[in-house]
C-alpha cells in the first residue's frame, strides 16, 4: 500500500510538470496572445501605425500607381454603368 502511495505522489508530481510544460504552456501562450491583442498597448500601437502610414502616404506625389488607378477607374465606371 505505502509503495503505491509513494508511486502515486511521484507520478502526480511528474504529470503536473509534464502537463505544465506541454499543454499548460500552450494554453498560457494563447492567453498571452489574446491578452496582447486586446491590450491598451496594442490599440495604441495600431493607432500609431495607422498615423505613420497616413503621414508617409501624404508625403508621396501620388497615392496610387498608374496601373492601379486605371484599374480602379475601369472598375468604378463599370459599376456606374450597371447602376444606371
Amino acid at each position, binding site marked *: 500500500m*505505502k*509503495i503505491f502511495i*509513494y508511486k502515486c505522489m*511521484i507520478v502526480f508530481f511528474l504529470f*503536473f510538470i509534464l502537463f505544465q510544460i506541454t499543454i499548460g504552456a500552450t494554453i*498560457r501562450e494563447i492567453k*498571452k496572445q489574446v491578452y496582447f491583442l486586446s491590450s491598451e*498597448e496594442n490599440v495604441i500601437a495600431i493607432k500609431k501605425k495607422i498615423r505613420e502610414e497616413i503621414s508617409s502616404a501624404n508625403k508621396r506625389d501620388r497615392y496610387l500607381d498608374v496601373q492601379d488607378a486605371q484599374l480602379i477607374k475601369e472598375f468604378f465606371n463599370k459599376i456606374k454603368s450597371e447602376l444606371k
Partner: protein
Amino acid sequence: MKENTLFNSKYFIYALFFLLFVIGTLTFRDYGIGIDDKFHRLNGFYWLDYLLSFTDFNDLKSLVKIKLSQISDISLPSTIEYNKYSIIFDVPAAILELALKLDNPKEFYEVRHYLNFIFYFVGCIYFYRLLSLRFNRLISFFGCVLFILSPRIYGESFYNMKDIVFLTFLIMGYFYSFRCFLTYDIKNLVFLSFISAICIQTRIIGLALPLSFIFFYLLSILSKKSDLKYFGKIFLYSIATFLFLIAIWPYLWSSPLKNFLAVINNWSPSIHIFFNGNYIPNDFLPFSYIPLWILISTPVLHIFLFTIGFFLIFKRLYQRLVSIDQNNLSYDIWKGVKEKFDVFISLNFLILMTLVIFLNIKLLNAWKHLYFINVYLIYIASFGLNNIYIFFKKKNKVVLFINILILSLTLIAFKMYKYHPYQGLYFNSLVSDNYKNKFEVDFTALSARHFFERIFESKKNDEKIFIGTASWTPLIRTLDIFKKSEREKIILVGQDFQRADLIFSNNISEVDKTLNDKYDIPKNFSKFYQLKIDGAILYTIYKKNNL
C-alpha cells in the same frame, strides 16, 4: 589554523553576530526610502487605530487618528487593498513611532529601517540555531556567514518590511519544526503553531509551513505506524495554529473565511515588467523568470554550493525511494532525524519552486516575493559545504578548505561593500554590465533619495524645480524625508514633460515602453546625469536643452 580552536569556538559566532549588529547599527541611515515605506506606515496606523477602537485610550486614539490623516498621497492604494497586509511589523513600528514621539519623517522612517534590520538580525541568529541542529559548529558558522553574505537579502533587510520579516519567521518556523521532529513535545508544538500563524499572516504562502509539517507527519505514519501516537498532538497543533491566526489577524475578525479567501485572491497588480530586455506582462511570466533572477543575483559561491548540495540530497533521496521495502523497520525516505531535516527542506524547496514557476504566479520587483527561499538555498548550500568539508577532511586538508572558503567569502563581502547602500540591487560576476541593464534594477526607488540629494546640492537658491517622471516610480513618497524648505522647491509634474526642467527616468514601467510613448523623453531634453552601480543603471536625469 586548527579548526577545533578557531571556527569551532562559540565566541567566533558571537563575534560574527556582534559585527553584523555593529555594521547594521552604523549603516542603517544610509539606505534610501523605498516606495513601500509610506504604505507600511499607513497600514500600521490603520490597524493600530482599529485595535484601539476596542479600548478606552482616548488620547492615544486621537493621536493615531491625527497620524493617519497626515499619511496621504495620490500614489497610495485604497484601504480595500492595504488592509489585507500583515500587521506583524507595521503595528509594532507604529507603536514605536508613538512611544519615541517621532514627528520628523526622516527619523520615523529610519527607526522603521532599524527595526526591520533587528528582525533580520534575529532571523540570522535563528538560522545559525537551525543549522546547528543539523551540522557541526564549523559548517553552521560558515552556513550562517553565507546567509549574511547574501547581498540582496542583506540590503533589503533595511527596508523590506514584509519579505524579510516573513523570511525571519519562516526560519523560526523551520527551527521549531526541526525541534518538533526531534521530540513532539507540547512546548515546541505551541511555539511552532504560533510562528506558523505569524508566517501565514505575513505572507499567505506561509501556509506551506504547517501544511508541509503535517504532510511530513503523514509520511512518517506511512513508514511507521507507531507514530500514530503523536496524532493527538498534531491535531492540537492544527487547532492552535488556526486559533493563533485568528487572534493575531484583525482582518479576519469580522468574517474569517470570507476575508481569508479575499487575502488568497489578493495578488500583485497587473503591470509590465522589464525582464531580459523586454517589457512583459507579469500575468504571463516565462518559466525562466525566477530561476534566471536567482542565477544572476546570487553570488556564484552560493550557487556552486547549492548545486552540489541539491544534487547530493536528491541523489540520496532517489536511492532511498528505489530501495523502499514493504517491511522496512526504519523510515522510508530518510534514515535518522538529520536526514529528515534535509528531505524536509529540499522537498519544501522543490514543491514551492515548482508551484511558483508553473502556476503562473504574478510577481514583480525581481524575486523579492520569493526572498524566503534563501532559507532553502543556504541550507542546501550548507549541505553541499558539509560534503566538501568531509571530502577535504578525509584528505587531511581542512586548512586549505577553510582558506579557500574565507577567500571566496571575503570577495563577496568586498563586493557588498562596493554596492553599499544598494546591496539589494546586486548582480553576480556572471553578468555583464550590458546584461544587467536588461532587467528592472531599482523597483523600490532607493536611488530616488540620491536623486533629490543631488538636486538640492546643485540648487542652493529657492528657485522652484519642475521634475517630470519617465518611470512608474512614485517619487513623491521619497520626497517626504526632506525638510519642508527643500520639499517646497520641488514640483513634480508627472508626465507633463513640457513643464519639466528635469526628467527622472529608469527602466521601471507599468506599460510596455516600446509600444506606449507615455514615458518617451521629448527631443528637447538631453542626458545630464546617470547613477550606475557596478555597471547597472539606477536612474538617468534628462535636462531641458535651453537650461
